[in-house]
């Protein structure tokens, strides 16, 4: 039997007396999951505990729950949900629909990578308006050695927006209310100045980054949570398009700029038995 171990600060198990492969008790950050948490904690509290290792305050619970609600379904026009629907419409497996949504929703433009970068900006700039204005004036640098393409716009802002949308403003107003949200409160107070510096309106990714920062998550944790929290919308829209079927799903027109034209190689086609 191997003596190798999986090291963890999150999860502790005790086996059933007659089966070393079945847990009799599971403790998460010290709390009895099936004895205590299942009975006394909410899903959102448990989610916070999993990531932060501590129970959230009532204010933190409200903030994370509000964020989860705001992010749960960006709607079928969102690229990540669109990707999930591409899976659903063709009858692809449920997991592939979510994998498609995760892959697209991971990106640096409107996705989890953008949130992560915006959270790094919060760490560097805090609530110093001058630092934000200086940072936002600099075009994001492309790193040719990074697998992630550059975002092309300041993270947290809408590259094609005209003004901050109503849902973004509503979300910011709701989330900024608790005492535990200093970044969100500052963002709300300074939104016009930041938007002026960015030349773009605030986006939901920017609100999410500030909220995740106020909840004490590290950028990598925020990236993961943003991916997770947007999956419900992807799931339901994929299922819905599966029901509608491909004949009711857009296929779009194509404009091929270098079309060689039909049957330009008749001899080859004849050889191929066409």
């Amino acid at each position, binding site marked *: 039997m191997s003596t190798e171990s999986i090291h963890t600060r999150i999860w502790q198990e005790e086996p059933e007396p007659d089966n070393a492969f079945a847990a009799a008790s599971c403790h998460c950050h010290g709390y009895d999951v099936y004895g205590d*948490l299942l009975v006394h904690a909410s899903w959102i509290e448990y989610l916070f505990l999993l990531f932060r290792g501590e129970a959230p305050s009532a204010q933190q619970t409200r903030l994370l729950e509000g964020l989860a609600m705001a992010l749960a379904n960006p709607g079928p026009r969102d690229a990540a949900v669109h990707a999930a629907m591409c899976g659903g419409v063709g009858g692809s497996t449920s997991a592939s629909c979510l*994998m498609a949504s995760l892959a697209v929703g991971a990106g640096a433009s409107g996705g989890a990578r953008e949130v992560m970068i915006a959270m790094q900006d919060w760490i560097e700039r805090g609530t110093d308006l001058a630092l934000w204005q200086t940072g936002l004036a600099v075009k994001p640098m492309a790193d040719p050695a990074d697998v992630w393409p550059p975002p092309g716009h300041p993270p947290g802002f809408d590259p094609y927006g005209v003004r901050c949308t109503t849902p973004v403003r509503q979300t910011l107003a709701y989330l900024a209310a608790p005492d535990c949200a200093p970044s969100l409160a500052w963002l709300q107070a300074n939104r016009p100045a930041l938007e002026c510096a960015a030349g773009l309106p605030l986006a939901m990714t920017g609100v999410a980054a500030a909220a995740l920062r106020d909840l004490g998550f590290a950028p990598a944790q925020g990236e993961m949570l943003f991916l997770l929290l947007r999956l419900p919308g992807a799931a339901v829209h994929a299922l819905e398009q599966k029901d509608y079927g491909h004949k009711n799903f857009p296929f779009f027109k194509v404009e091929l700029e270098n079309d060689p034209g039909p049957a330009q190689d008749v001899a080859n086609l004849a050889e191929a038995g066409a």
Partner: protein
Amino acid sequence: MKGPRLLVELVGRLTTRMGAVFPGERAVFRGLDLHASLKGLDWLELYLFGITGRRFTPQQMKVLQAIWSYTSYPDARIWNNRVAALAGTARSTGSLGIAAALAVSEAQIYGRGIDLRTSEFLRRAKTQVDAAANLTGVVRAELKQQRGIAGYGRPIVAGDERIAPMMALAREQGLDGGPHLQLAFEVEKILLAGRWRLHMNYAALAAALCADFGLTPLEYYFFGIPAFLAGMPPCYLEAAEKPAGLLFPLPCRILSYEGVARRRWRGAPMKPDASG
């Protein structure tokens, strides 16, 4: 034009130079008829044509093919392969397991993350050396900035069994004298002579060969995406052939808990048998 006006211009249509299918008629691939002009290409040639828009010599194709083959290990312990194998033992589908395993192959300490960094470093180093920079200085600067050089050193073991056969093939094909390849070995000499004691690994060799074939770092990254693919289905299939759940069974005791002591959730009554 910018903002929503730009988006309005693009609603409902795809403007492309990459290709399209005309169902029941033909398919165009980068401006050429797939079933006529490109019908003689093997799959890897087509894949590379899709990435680069260019064709490669038969000798280069042999080496490019081998770059994939020589690193396709059907060893289910390897982290990315293990994902495919776990999908098999958990009775997930082959596509899900292998797609996930390929995605996991984009890692920071191996696979695609290293590919891109290695290719970019070798190209940048060559540009600097061509401009009369001293290679030792370039290496030192990279080590100082990145705390390592992608393509040198290897997780778990130091040596790399893929280098000798790949170099033999490159020699056989007359492709062992390219400037990036020479530079890659020069970097190894510097790293071995210094206190770093880092051998070149397969990532640097493959990146150097591909740079000599004209692949940019981004093209090389895309070329490498299926590099581990051939080793993955065997891992899935063997796990799927065995009874479910028999791959890498983990007893509770394998968890080495290093977290906080046991405690009670607020509102939860204290249990007489509560420990910790």
